[in-house]
């Protein structure tokens, strides 16, 4: 973070017109640091490339931000500028000069240092490519002493406007945050929380962010960073995981303290002390496995921190097993359990015991966390025909069209079909020249016409769905008395029902299938579909669906080897 401090001092002392900070890991963190470091030294406006999606928004944000003007509803959301300042670059520059002049107060007639921090400048480039170049030259154009600081995950080379219209920036590269930086950041967070909490409440009962616990927190942070650093080095992500785990981690200590206070009753003077090293080690041993679980679930945001913390509160018995419940009263309750644990301890060596404990803990966590319990597999939630359609769509997406006849053709000429297939395989075995073909599973699902889907569906239903092909129930006899003598005719009748098309439309609205052609085109090419991303294009999901339906999916995928 030294480089950022340098930037701040530079802007304060001798502002370069344009600074470009490249932080590929955590630009958000960098900006927060920058803003907090330059507090009361520089008048700084934070502009977000996503939020300011039109020039007008950009100009308004800058002018209102610099003048620290908050548009109020009673004044009709008036902007700072009395003139129209947001319709072009020229009027903006004029207003900017006027604004700067109004800021220059006092005898020295010298305004404050002004800096514009632009987050996500790459979004500005996407939306308003013309505006980036003038902004790099803003100091020059407005003839003011201000600097523009851009902070981006991307490099300047990728954003730079063409033809050298922009001036070259003062480059700053932020290195990957080291463990020390992250720990320092987390400790600062702790201090902030402890300060906030003390301000907010007057109660004397200790809370997780009690300043007494700082040393314990440091220890905790070391472990968290150790576990997570391999996977992410964004300080915010590690902060997220730490925030989710810390209250649960320290809770046994707090509980023990409050119990002590209760036991002492009259004597209110029991000092809240930081836990002993031994206790700390026990806590660590108890909670360390849940940290990697937290990483697995929280980093991809499969759940959120608050819910995760609630779902992963340790229950009394597992805490007692690790000797983490200190009060005697609770010990009585869990004594029985303790006994069983002790028995286990005597009867088995310690190593398997701990692994078993972890397993138990994991099972408990799996069952308690809501997201896993709620996950309904597709095979339960979808009606039968929709499952068939998904399998057919997968086959159509993954197989080249010319293989359909070979895989599904069931003529009288079975022999001929086989021979062709083997011939083809032999031809495949020969080394080929030309560029290597990418297996379908790497290139993702390919689009297919609706008719092909219906045809494959028909083949699947004919061979694997006895209900449709046999017509067990009397309901299957159509009202107009058609009887089906040609094999496959009934299936053909079944798969062109309105219900099938409705199911396909339904799956499309669920995004399990994706329509690749526009819906307003009636003639010309037929409707093209493809498997939606995620579950419907994953081999495992479809395989389990197919197993439920009795479809031999591996036999129906042309390039089975590539499927793995």
């Amino acid at each position, binding site marked *: 973070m030294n480089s950022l401090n340098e930037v701040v001092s530079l802007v304060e002392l001798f502002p370069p017109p344009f600074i470009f900070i490249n932080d590929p890991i955590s630009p*958000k*963190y960098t900006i927060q640091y920058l803003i907090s470091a330059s507090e009361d030294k520089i008048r700084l406006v934070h502009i977000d490339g*996503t*939020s300011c*999606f*039109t020039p*007008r928004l950009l100009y*308004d944000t800058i002018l209102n931000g610099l003048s620290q003007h*908050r*548009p109020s509803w009673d004044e009709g*959301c008036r*902007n700072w*500028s009395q003139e*129209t300042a947001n319709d072009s670059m020229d009027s903006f520059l004029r207003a900017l000069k006027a604004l700067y002049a109004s800021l220059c107060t006092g005898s020295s007639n010298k305004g404050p240092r002004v800096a514009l921090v632009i987050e996500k400048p790459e979004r500005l480039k996407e939306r308003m490519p013309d505006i980036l170049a003038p902004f790099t030259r803003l100091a020059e154009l407005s003839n003011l002493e201000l600097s523009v600081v851009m902070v981006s995950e991307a490099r300047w080379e990728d954003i730079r406007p063409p033809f050298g219209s922009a001036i070259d920036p003062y480059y700053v590269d932020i290195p990957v945050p080291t463990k020390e930086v992250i720990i320092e950041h987390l400790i600062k*967070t702790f201090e902030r929380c402890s300060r906030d909490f003390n301000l907010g409440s007057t109660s004397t009962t200790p809370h997780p*962010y009690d300043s007494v616990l700082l040393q314990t927190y440091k220890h905790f942070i070391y472990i968290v960073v150790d576990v997570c650093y391999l996977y992410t080095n964004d300080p915010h992500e590690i902060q*997220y995981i730490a*925030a989710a785990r810390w*209250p649960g981690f320290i809770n046994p200590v707090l509980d023990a303290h409050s119990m002590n206070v209760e036991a002492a009753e009259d004597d209110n003077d029991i000092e809240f002390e930081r836990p002993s090293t031994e206790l700390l080690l026990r806590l660590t041993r108890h909670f360390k496995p849940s940290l990697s679980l937290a990483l697995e679930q929280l*980093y*991809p*945001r*499969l*759940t*959120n*921190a*608050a*819910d995760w*913390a609630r779902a992963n509160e340790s229950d009394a018995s597992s805490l007692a097993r690790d000797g983490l419940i200190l009060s005697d009263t609770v010990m009585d309750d869990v004594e029985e359990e303790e006994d069983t644990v002790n028995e286990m301890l005597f009867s088995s060596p310690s190593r398997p015991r701990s692994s078993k404990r972890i397993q138990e803990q994991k099972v408990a966590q799996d069952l308690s966390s*809501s997201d896993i*319990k709620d*996950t*309904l597999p597709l*095979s*339960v939630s979808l*009606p*039968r*025909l929709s499952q068939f359609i998904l399998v057919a769509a997968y086959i159509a997406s993954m197989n080249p069209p010319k293989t359909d006849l070979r895989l599904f053709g069931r003529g009288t000429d079975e022999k001929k079909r086989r021979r062709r297939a083997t011939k083809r395989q032999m031809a495949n075995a020969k080394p080929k020249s030309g560029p290597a073909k990418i297996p379908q599973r790497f290139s993702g699902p390919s689009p297919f016409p609706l*008719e092909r889907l219906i045809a494959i569906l028909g083949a699947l239903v004919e061979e694997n769905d006895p*209900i449709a092909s046999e017509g067990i129930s*009397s*309901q299957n006899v*159509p009202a107009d008395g*058609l*009887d089906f003598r040609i094999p496959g005719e009934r299936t*053909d009748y079944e798969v*062109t*029902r*309105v*219900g099938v098309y409705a199911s396909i439309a*339904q799956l499309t*609205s*669920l*995004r399990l299938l994706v329509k690749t052609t526009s819906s307003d085109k009636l003639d010309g090419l*037929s409707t093209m579909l493809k498997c*939606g991303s995620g*579950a419907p294009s994953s081999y495992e999901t479809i395989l*389990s669906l197919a*197993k*439920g339906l009795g479809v031999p999916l591996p036999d129906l995928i042309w390039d089975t080897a590539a499927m793995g």
Partner: protein
Amino acid sequence: MINLDDVNETAYYIPYREQNAEPPEPSHPLRLAFDLPNGPELRWNAYKSAWVKCLDRVQTLVHELYEPVVAEVVEKIESAYNDDDQTDFTSLALPHFEIPTIAVANSSSADPYFLSSVIFQLRSIAHLYPADCVNLSTAMKSIISGFLSTSGSSYRSSAKILAAYDINVLVAWYSAQKADTRPQNLILLLHDFEQFDPGVLQDVLYICSQHVPSLPLVVLISLSSPQSPLSPQSYLHVTYPRSTLKLMRIQSVIVPSGPRVLEEVIIKTFVDLSSVNDELDIVPGPAVLEFLVEYATRFNPSVHALLNILQLAHLKHFLTNPLTALASLVPHLPSGINALSLEPTLQEPGSTEFKELLVQRLTSDRNDADNSNSTSSLTALTRAVHVAWSQFRTRTRSIRLAYLLLQGLHDFLSEKGYKGLGNHWGSTTVPAFMSTAAQTAASTSSSRYPQYLRLQNYINLLQLHAQTHSKQSAKDITYARTLLRKLRPEELRAYLNTLIPKLQELQNELGVDIPTGGDEGEERSNLNLAEVVRMLEEWRSEAEEVYRAYETVETGTRERNMNQAAVEKFKLLNENLAEWMYEYLGALTTPIESIPLWDVCYTGSAVFPSETLNPSIRASVIAGLLRPKDFAAEPPSRFSHVPAGGDGYEIAPHKAHAGQKDTQQDNFAEEEIGDEITDDSEDDSDPLHTFPDTSVLFHRYLESGKMINVYDWFESFHTVIGIQRRETNAKDEVKKRKGKAVNGIVSPAKKKKGKEKARDSDLDGDEEMKDHGEEPPDSSSNSEERHQLLVQARFIRALHELEFLGFIKHTRRKPDHVLRTVFDVGD
């Protein structure tokens, strides 16, 4: 008059004028044989009241299911910004504030009632629809104006004030609200979440996240997917990047739906006896229920589908059976419309047919001669109807009771850890937390009949005595007897203890007895509940005794003899209970069809009109093109009114002659259904040239290869038209010779011939065409030229029709060829 020769015009609009159109008859298609004079009206009223009742019941049940979920969503929204301490500690140290987001899976596909009742309980909601999200500006604008409108304000932007899509407007508006009237939180409801453009929505969420918590936004996502929004493969996680997901604190709620819910609703509506005093008018028979089950398993397990099917079943029931008019005539039927009573209606002169049918049904169903005198007088007839009615009610109840008894026995046994009546009665021993896994296992292992087990058992019971169906229920009842015999003393006691309260409860609710009414000839052979309960209670006290005796056996060994006696007694008791249950179930499951007039309120095994709900489009289109006259044919009842006059002699001895007159067509319709007509004139079907143009083209289409040369096609079409023309000329000449007497009657053949209609609309005047058509083909070159043009136009029109139906496709390579898209199954 349109001048078709105007070279300045590129297109003409020729409005369709129907020729020879008869004035539309007053629509009385609902009129049936044996109907009452005001039968259709009566049946319509009966349908309405019956259906409204059924709809109400189903909707109430569904809404009851939704209620806890609605409460959960509302609670989550309201507590989004005031959490308890635990969360507070967690969220205190988070790197940034997360937008509270509640993702409701399944809500779009569920009843709209769900979302509306959530909305009803909240205020300050902005709705965002996918159509509003074409770009970021419009999306932001509609969000802001949506929130502003909740307080009745609006915002008009100008150059000196903030833009209308600037979120700072919302911030300013919110902070200007008075503290007491200020909404607790602002709810942004995203409808049909799957349809949103993810790119736009990402930015919207990002912008919103910059302003929480000072702007207390809560995002409510309405997903249609049934999956949990928090699984790694869910739509949210697959579509949106982590950078967006981490802005939100997503909590998921799943609206109940799918097969389980549906089954519960059906069982509660039609089977459970809890609502026995407020019966539905119509009892769906096994055919309807079976279709329902099949449709729900295969196509759509939604409540909408259920309601559609039930409504269709109601409609069909009241449309096809004249006796259903009784439903609104018999006063104590709970249909609500009792304006008309039965007697005066039957006295009306027009209702003799109906009366006869009624008498006939009452006597024949009863199947004995004694009652024939009871139906002679009107009062007796009315009484007989009433009796039949109440018998019907009790019969339907008793079947339901039988089902509940069996289910109760099964549940009891499986709770004790036995297999019960078998897997097809469902396994209830699955622990709650395992349920999803068990469901998965069940559905993957036996996916053929995975769902609707309970309903299927009920259907089996309804069909117990039908010959065609499997004897599963009979087996179940016998097996129940076997199981009851094998009960151990403590189990016997426990079973009686669970059974008796249930029956007592039922008895209290009913207030009347459930007679079995099984014996022929006797009006009521009561096996009433009170008696059953009395008997069971006796047994229970015996069982108690036996149980105590057994206990002493276990504790001590004194008094062997008494134990021996107890064992005997217990055996007897078991045997009694088993036999009683067997007989009772047997009596309860007497088929509903044995009651006279059962079909007034019971749909029985009448086939459900599945083709109406779920037709096979392609098959219908192809059938229509192959046999157009089956579809255009008028109903046979009207043929009888057409005088045979001009047509009779035209039924030609040889087949090449125009023979599509009515009588022959009737034969045709009977013989040809089900056959594929791939060729004309070879078999005994109509010759090709009598078909409409599109159909003619389609027949040729079926004979061709993969690609069709359009010119060849046209040539073959031309030939057919040539035959057609000669036929018309020949006919006209015959007509001329026969004189005007024949022409006085409007020929029905002319009315319904598609080809003539086609011709009519091709040319702008009927007379004009006729004039040319009647001229001999070689009268003048001008007429021949016109004919050529006519044929060409008709060909192009038919071709376009086929193209519109999706039968042909063009290729770029061969402009004079078209691709065939449909191939016969037989090919």
